[in-house]
């Protein structure tokens, strides 16, 4: 696939991201995008082999945005199936991947920021406000996901993209759990208070307000 084709496809998929769309059509689109994702990964690997960093990052950016759209579609299917908890997880993946797409490569900021804003808007309009939690810990050692060296010893910066790959920090030694806090702006929106109630079921599901057994 050519760059232009991918960008047109990314633009075109916006029209499926509505709650009113038929479930079968949404599922067809998910499977179609799965195939597109495979093709993108192949092309990205080719550029990595050629050591062409700029194009490898561009195709990583395409990959992220396709994953974001796939997750957006899955979110609507799960909502239709009455599974808002897993739909929330898909929304978070969609939000993260659309942001990462911009960080990897800005190929069309209008489309890319359009998806970021769209998924942020969905959070506000389709889901109730969440109570997020955040852990705090003392890290003794961590390593770089790219070169596996001690995080202090290499030159890769966490969150930046290198040859089609994001640098992330892998914590290899937690010395101490410090505290857990309720926060409004968490690093991971999947860390949230899902239920309230006693240790034993039934517990109140904070998404549906149903008592879960």
């Amino acid at each position, binding site marked *: 696939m050519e760059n232009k084709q991918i960008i047109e496809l990314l633009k075109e998929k916006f029209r499926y991201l509505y709650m009113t769309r038929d479930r079968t059509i949404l599922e067809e689109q998910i499977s179609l995008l799965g195939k597109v994702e495979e093709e993108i990964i192949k092309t990205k690997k080719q550029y990595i082999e050629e050591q062409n960093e700029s194009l490898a990052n561009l195709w990583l950016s395409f990959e992220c945005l396709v994953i974001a759209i796939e997750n957006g579609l899955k979110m609507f299917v799960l909502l239709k199936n009455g599974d808002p908890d897993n739909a929330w997880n898909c929304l978070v993946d969609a939000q993260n991947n*659309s*942001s*990462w*797409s*911009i*960080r990897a490569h*800005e190929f069309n900021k209008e489309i*890319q*920021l359009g998806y*970021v*804003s769209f998924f*942020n808007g969905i959070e506000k309009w389709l889901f109730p406000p969440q109570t997020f939690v*955040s*852990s*705090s*810990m*003392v*890290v*003794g050692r961590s390593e770089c996901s790219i070169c596996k060296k001690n*995080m*202090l010893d*290499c*030159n*890769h*910066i*966490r*969150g*930046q993209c290198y040859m089609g790959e994001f640098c992330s920090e892998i*914590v290899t030694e937690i*010395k101490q759990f*410090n505290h857990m*806090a309720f*926060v409004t*702006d*968490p*690093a*991971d929106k999947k*860390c949230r208070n899902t239920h309230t109630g006693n240790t034993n079921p039934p517990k109140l599901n904070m998404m549906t307000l149903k008592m879960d057994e």
Partner: protein
Amino acid sequence: MYYVENKWVDNNIIKTEGYPNIRIKAENFGFNVPDSVWLLPNSFETIKEPNGILYSADYDTLVKLFRASNIPCSLLDTNFSKLQNNSFELFALPLIVFPYHFLINHPEIIIESLKLLSDLFHRHSKSFSKNESSRVNVTIIKEERPSSFKKYSFQGPESSFDKFIEYMKNEEKNGKQADN
């Protein structure tokens, strides 16, 4: 007690205040003040014992940033642990200290370092729209004269960080004029 001066520039707060003599404190703990940019744990001035020292999560990012730009930079020790909070912060940075003797030989180093930070913030907040610009928190300590320290901090959206650079440029200019 030290004076505190708060300056509001739009919605951002730039705070200037006196700072204790951390040279003595570091030496009491068995550390020497380096001839380089010095990265210290936050609230170093209140730490009672060197055993409990914890760096903030992104101290290593800063070390890499300075290293890549050939700016000499030192830590107290490389064996300290760091505190990782999973709440969202664009970067959890340590105190950035500019010792007097290093500043004398590298008068542009503060602005140069802040520009590096500005680039880093900008790269990492590209995916935020203008309305939801990510907030940053930066504290620098300048040793203006031997053993006389001043703390400058900025708290505000990443998109306004350049105003802090402008503020520091003016401070440098005013300092030079006062010296003359």
